[in-house]
């Protein structure tokens, strides 16, 4: 990995450096993604991030996601620390309220062969860079798949999520990512619960049949009160003429 000299230099030159390093890392990113492909059931894709002062996205590898397909897809992440130069840049980006973006390539989890897994395009998400800084790099990344196992979206939030403008003094806080990762498949929406409802009804009627005296329902017990109440209500309602009704057209 190319690493610039840790000199304190003017802003202009640092930007220049950043541009250069980005270029190099971009190349590296692809290599890492390819190399880290493993033989066991999981496979890995790069997780890339970008944070720039001018907000033009330049993605570099942040880590590698190891995805395991199957009935219960799972995911794990290996990521390196943030370099010192990146830390300063992240703070700079946070100062101008820039964005911290992440992206993952589109993949199809259920495919057998590697060639079928990778698809064209990326899924991107973002948080405000200041939130990233103020949360000391503790983020929650979730990957969403669709019914058939295609990765359709990625989302990132930080905990806490707010930007309060608190200064992060300690550089060490910005070194290690504290990432909570999850992969989510769509929830099966419930259908109408007819079976349970009927079962309950049957059980109630059975109970009533067994022990008609004690197991009477509320309505069975107090039906005369309710009926009486209803009749009373109806009588009082009909005593006063109903809204609009019976009014003459005069």
């Amino acid at each position, binding site marked *: 990995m190319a690493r610039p000299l840790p000199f304190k230099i003017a802003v202009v030159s640092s930007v220049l450096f950043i541009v250069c390093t980005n270029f190099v890392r971009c190349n590296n990113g692809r290599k890492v993604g390819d190399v880290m492909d493993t033989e066991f059931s999981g496979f890995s894709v790069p997780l890339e991030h970008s944070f720039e002062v001018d907000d033009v996205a330049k993605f570099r590898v942040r880590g590698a996601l190891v995805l395991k397909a199957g009935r219960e897809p799972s995911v794990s992440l290996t990521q390196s620390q943030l370099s010192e130069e990146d830390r300063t840049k992240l703070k700079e980006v946070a100062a101008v309220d820039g964005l911290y973006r992440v992206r993952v390539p589109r993949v199809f989890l259920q495919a057998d062969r590697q060639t079928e897994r990778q698809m064209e395009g990326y899924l991107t998400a973002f948080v405000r860079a200041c939130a990233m800084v103020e949360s000391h790099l503790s983020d929650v990344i979730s990957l969403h798949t669709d019914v058939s196992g295609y990765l359709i*979206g990625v989302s990132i939030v930080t905990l806490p999520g707010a930007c309060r403008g608190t200064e992060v003094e300690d550089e060490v806080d910005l070194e290690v990512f504290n990432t909570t990762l999850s992969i989510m498949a769509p929830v099966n929406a419930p259908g109408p619960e007819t079976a349970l409802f009927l079962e309950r009804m049957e059980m109630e009627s059975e109970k009533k049949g067994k022990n008609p005296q004690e197991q009477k329902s509320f309505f069975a017990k107090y039906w005369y009160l309710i009926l009486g109440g209803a009749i009373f209500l109806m009588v009082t309602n009909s005593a006063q003429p109903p809204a609009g009704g019976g009014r003459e057209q005069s």
Partner: protein
Amino acid sequence: MAKLIWLCLQFIMLYSTVEAVFEDQVGKFDWRQQYVGKVRFSHFDSHVQSSKKVLVATENNVFASLNTRTGELFWRHVDKTGPEGNIDALLQHGQDAVLVVGNGRLLRSWEINIGGLNWEVVLDSGSFQSACLVGQQDTVKHVAVLKKTVISLHYLSNGHQKWIENLPERQAVYSGGNGEVYALGVVPHSHIAIVAYSLEDGEIIKQISVEAPWLSKIQASCSVIDQGMLTCVDPATVSLYMLDLHLQSQMTQIPLQSLGLEVTPGFQPVLVSTQPNPARPPLSEFLLQLGPEHHLLLQLNNGHIVTLRDFKPAMLVSFATTGEKTVAAVMSPKNKTACSINLFSGETGRRLLDTTLIFNMDPNGGKPEKLYIQAFLKKDDSVGYRVMVQTEDHTLTFIQQPGRVMWTREEALSDVVTMEMVDLPLTGTQAELEGEFGKKADGLMSMVLKRLSSQLILLQAWIAHLWKLFYDARKPRSQVKNDVTIENLSRDEFNLQKMMVMVTASGKLFGIDSKTGSILWRHYLNNISSNPAFKLMVQRTTAHFPHPPQCTLLIKDKDTGLATLHVFNPIFGKTSHISPPALTQPILQSLMLPLMDQDYAKVLLLVDDQYKVSAFPSTKNVLQQLQEMASSIFFYLIDSSQGRLSGYRLRTDLSTELIWEVVVPTEVQRIVSVKGKRPNEHVHSQGRVMGDRSVLYKYLNPNLLAVVLESTDLHQERSFVGILLIDGVTGRIIHEAVQRKARGPVHVVHSENWVVYEYWSTKSRRNEFSVIELYEGMELYNSTVFSSLDRPHAPQVLQQSYIFPSSISTMEATLTEKGITSRHLLIGLPSGGILSLPKMFLDPRRPEIVTEQSREENLIPYAPELLIRTEWFINYNQTVSRVRGIYTAPSGLESTCLVVAYGLDIYQTRVYPSKQFDVLKDDYDYMLISSVLLALFFATMISKRLAEVKLLNRAWR
């Protein structure tokens, strides 16, 4: 089971609010207008001299009878939508109207007086070509239907098939009343083939084939005149071709030049003949159109063509027959705003005296398109007539001599695409008062004077109002008419009367008074594309006097994506003097910002296909505001063909940057619809109080989008419906649910913290409703403000589903001013009913097992079936045909929500989801209350006096 029903009934009785319309309230707050659509065929009922019926068959698959005196419907039959109910032909004979429906699938006969069905027969398959009535010896007893490869003859009396014959491809059928039926066909650029059948048994009498290499379509260019003389016009050689069906086997060519006629270059000449009685041959006179405004009346006289009359300029020409007389009505332009219609004798071409009729063209309407003439014989045996003019904007105007408009029907309203309701302006006096506050203070003295003068004006207005009341009170009620005109439009006390701005598919805009349903203004956009999409936005409401309200209509061509803006005043319909920006690039997205320019017009942002943003209005002030706000303006784009949802952020230079991207693979599913929340929605309560007095807070994300996905695989085991809840700012997928074994069409309502959707369950073969509610939990993350960028915790999601006993056409939720009133769902059913279903029945917290807490919370125990109760129909017997959309608007009263349902019909009403808690009833007994109050007052006075006396007496004792 009985127990189940009993329980349900009990709960409904206990918990639901009872709503119904009393008999005397019918039509008081609601109105309905019925339409038929753009007229395709029209016949005047002529078998009775004094008939006042006109039959119309329309492109909306409606067959109806209109009253020619009033324009109202006598009866109407609405067939299926789409090609299945398409009306191919309308033939009328006496009291019967014969219709060919659904590309020749059905043959129907209607009784035209009451609109009853005489008979209906199903025809053999095959694409319909033509139909005609067949008569013999002055009686018409049969109808012939020609399909591509088969001709059949049916009895008019019962529809039974007399005979059916197969034949090679034919296009037209003709009968001249001599016991023969001719089927005419053309092999393009080769020859005409003619087969004559015997009326009695379908036997082929003769078969001839005539060379006609110039002919490609027989219906477009040929017509039979006189005694079976097939006449065709050929634009290439500019000549007429004639063929006697009985004799010759050779076409004679008559160059038009030999008749001294000339065709307008590039115009396809049209030939129109008339056959007043199907049992007799057509007349020998016919019309020939040679140019857009050039018509000729020609006559075939012993094989020679004679020009009877040359009409130039003439926009429209039409034949009409009454008794034995046939006339030609000619519409010719008079000046820019008016046309004159004259009658000419069919036999001689002479102009008939006193038959001029002036038709004033609406400057906000379209050009005349078709002319339907109702001719009748006057007492002195001269011909009188009335005319129904159809214009480009689908308007029907019925005119009597000498130009009195008897009625107009705005049939464009049968196809409303989108609408908005706009508050009416204040009256002049109210505005005067308002204006006082708006202006800058200029000295104490002048302010005082201004105030005094405006108070004086108010007093004057009040006295005038009192006088009017007093004056009206003496008149019987029926005579007091409060006609709404554009001049006296003003907001009522509770803002219940609004202006409905309706945009129709034909490109005509309407302003309709919501109280009475009368059309106050109309405006026809005559230069819109053939396949437009509309989006109507209110840029400035009426609240900013003296600035006029302003609406903007975005008209986008669906094919090219190019868009234009039409800016107008929604109260008067006038085009605004503000010139909208010319949009040269296709527009992808438009969004209305809450930002306002110095004239209080909200800013409209338009995103083009280069992802550049343009603002309208784009004054310096606006651009400056946009620059300041840019980092907090986000928008989303959806490309359903690629399954791509992407989010963008505005930059200060009005370019955009991509910030998030979600891609749904199109191989598996497609994006069907995306629903956000309505921007004018208010939620009063932040949370729900639970049984144990704790609060469950709602997840009220204003940026939340509900994306509906449908599987591409339609197999009933594998099909599914997916719901994605996505934050429109961050692209975060909040919730993802999939309803397996389900299919669309999916109808969605998204409001507050809930999404309700309806789908078809392929497994159980029924319609089901599902509701998703989102809650933050027992604690609110940030109670002061909601920011999508700072809500790290995912909300709790609750979901429940129910069985619904009917399919639905459309769905919308009620909307009130402050959101205090409970919500109802308004569901348009295919049966024409509009159901107001309380949202409390669609609540995922409905418990399976009733507990003390759930009872405390007033939760209805879960029952899998949602019942349709008849008193939930807000439109009682006022069926709304083919509901396509429901629009809801809040009124000034919190309890009241204004509802407009549109489809083929338009229905407007008010709903009170929590009953009228803020209104005294109509029959509130003011007398009783005031007399009781007075009596009590006097009683206290008297008893006080008595007590004093008593005390005094006691003191003396």
